């Protein structure tokens, strides 16, 4: 029996998928390839924040702090920003060392395989460096409160929804009100014409990595905050991310967000209906159903 709680769970899951998927759709449409290493950027963000927390705890005795009902305080904001910066740097490094040289040679299949290889290498590196066991930012068990009849959520989960909404609005403003955003949209359509317009596509590619990496880091840290941190965190999210991107329409930020919520809701609603073990398959049923009705996805446009 599906209840209001399942919808709330789906919404929260969809929000975390959304942050990762929006970054993925930007890199997919602007850099022109499916980056399978995007899941590891999510994992990387979660572990970078965890490592910084360990360092701050060891050196200065800091913890996560506490703001009201939230399980964290202002040190968490510092961790989040540092993780965004570190993950953006990681994304930039991959772009500089791996993806850009391959893109210049025009080997599209090489790019996809290289991203798969980078994903595998980074995942192994994380497991080697931090161990395969689950980790947590804090051990305290957050208390869920009833916010609507039959809906109980923790303050941290509400924070996930609010932060996701705020970041999507911020991204919308960047894409529509700034030169960088216009250039990113232009590059997703025609990189050569962007160069003819006087803007260096390589700079736009770098900023796309920074934004995609930053959003991936936020997704990783929020999953670490509300669930747990594991080396497979991003990898296991990768297939729902791609499902959300394709359902939403590659390159469409709002379409991808809608796709993420749809995938999140479908997975959450599948649990009471068919059991948790089949929830991952539901994302693909949604994918197929949407593509049959609308092949370009919810927010996609025909070329």
């Amino acid at each position: 029996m599906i209840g209001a709680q399942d919808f709330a769970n789906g919404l929260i899951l969809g929000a975390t998928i959304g942050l990762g998927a929006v970054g993925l759709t930007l890199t997919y449409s602007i850099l022109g390839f499916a980056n399978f290493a995007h899941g590891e950027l999510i994992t990387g963000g979660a572990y970078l924040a965890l490592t910084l927390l360990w360092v701050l705890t060891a050196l200065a005795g800091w913890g996560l702090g506490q703001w009201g009902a939230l399980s964290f305080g202002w040190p968490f904001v510092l961790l989040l920003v540092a993780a965004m910066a570190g993950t953006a740097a990681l994304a930039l490094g991959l772009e500089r060392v791996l993806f850009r040289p391959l893109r210049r040679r025009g080997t599209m299949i090489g790019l996809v395989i290289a991203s798969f290889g980078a994903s595998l290498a980074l995942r192994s590196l994380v497991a080697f460096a931090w161990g395969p066991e689950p980790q947590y930012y804090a051990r305290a068990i957050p208390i869920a409160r009833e916010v609507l009849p039959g809906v109980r959520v923790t303050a941290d989960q509400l924070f996930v929804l609010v932060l996701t909404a705020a970041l999507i609005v911020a991204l919308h403003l960047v894409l529509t009100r700034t030169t960088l955003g216009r250039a990113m949209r232009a590059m997703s359509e025609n990189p050569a014409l962007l160069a003819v317009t006087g803007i260096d596509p390589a700079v736009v590619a770098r900023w796309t990595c920074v934004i995609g990496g930053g959003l991936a880091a936020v997704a990783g840290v929020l999953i670490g905050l509300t669930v747990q941190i594991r080396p497979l965190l991003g990898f296991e999210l990768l297939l729902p991310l791609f499902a959300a991107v394709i359902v939403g329409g590659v390159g469409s930020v709002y379409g991808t967000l809608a796709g993420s919520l749809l995938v999140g809701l479908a997975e959450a609603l599948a649990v009471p209906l068919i059991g948790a073990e089949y929830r991952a398959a539901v994302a693909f049923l949604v994918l197929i159903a949407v593509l049959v009705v609308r092949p370009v996805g919810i927010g996609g446009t025909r070329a």
Partner: protein
Amino acid sequence: MNGVTLTVQDLVAGYEPGLPIVRGATLEAHAGEIFALLGPNGSGKSTLVGAVAGLVAIESGRVLLGGEDITGRATHRLVRAGVGYVPQRDNVFTRLTVEEHLALAAAPLDRPRRSARIDAMYDLFGDLAAWRRLVAGHLSGGQRQMLALARALVPAPRLLLLDEPSAGLAPAVVDAVLARLRGARALGVAIVLVEQNTRAALAVADRGCVLVEGRARLSGTANELAGNAEVARLYLGGAGR
């Protein structure tokens, strides 16, 4: 005659190393003139302007802009140096509005000049102001060509390269596009016009050349070219004028 803006010397360029399409082309375009680049299909006209715009690899030869060597410079740097380029196809971003096109083209300029240059384009292309909120994908072929031209003129280029601006347009629209070219010429811009429509090109051009198999074979004033028996026979459907 005004000063030389573009000098192309013995240019060899193409899409595959060792398979040049332009094979030693030499030409000059002056400030305040329209230079028509004529020739049959596959003669290398589009490749030549693509190479000058930094989009096609140059194997040898030189490209000078106002005497400065710009050979092989990156496309976005060429725009900043004063080279404007309007490709034949896909010359607008279909999902960006008219005003976003102009804002993007103005972005490399100093901040105080940006709005002045955009306003200048709305003055030169009166209709653009009415379409400013429309995405380019909703514009007609002629409207897109006007937008592409305005986009290239925003940074006030010294040299404007146009690849087949009349392709696929109705005759009345072609006339309107060519009228805007005359306006740009009056501002001192050197315009290199690649055209299949030889009659229309020679009607608006001051000088030009005929490119055959990647080399400039005939050159002269538009009147000289129009009066040339070979040009008339091959491209104008007659025996010269």
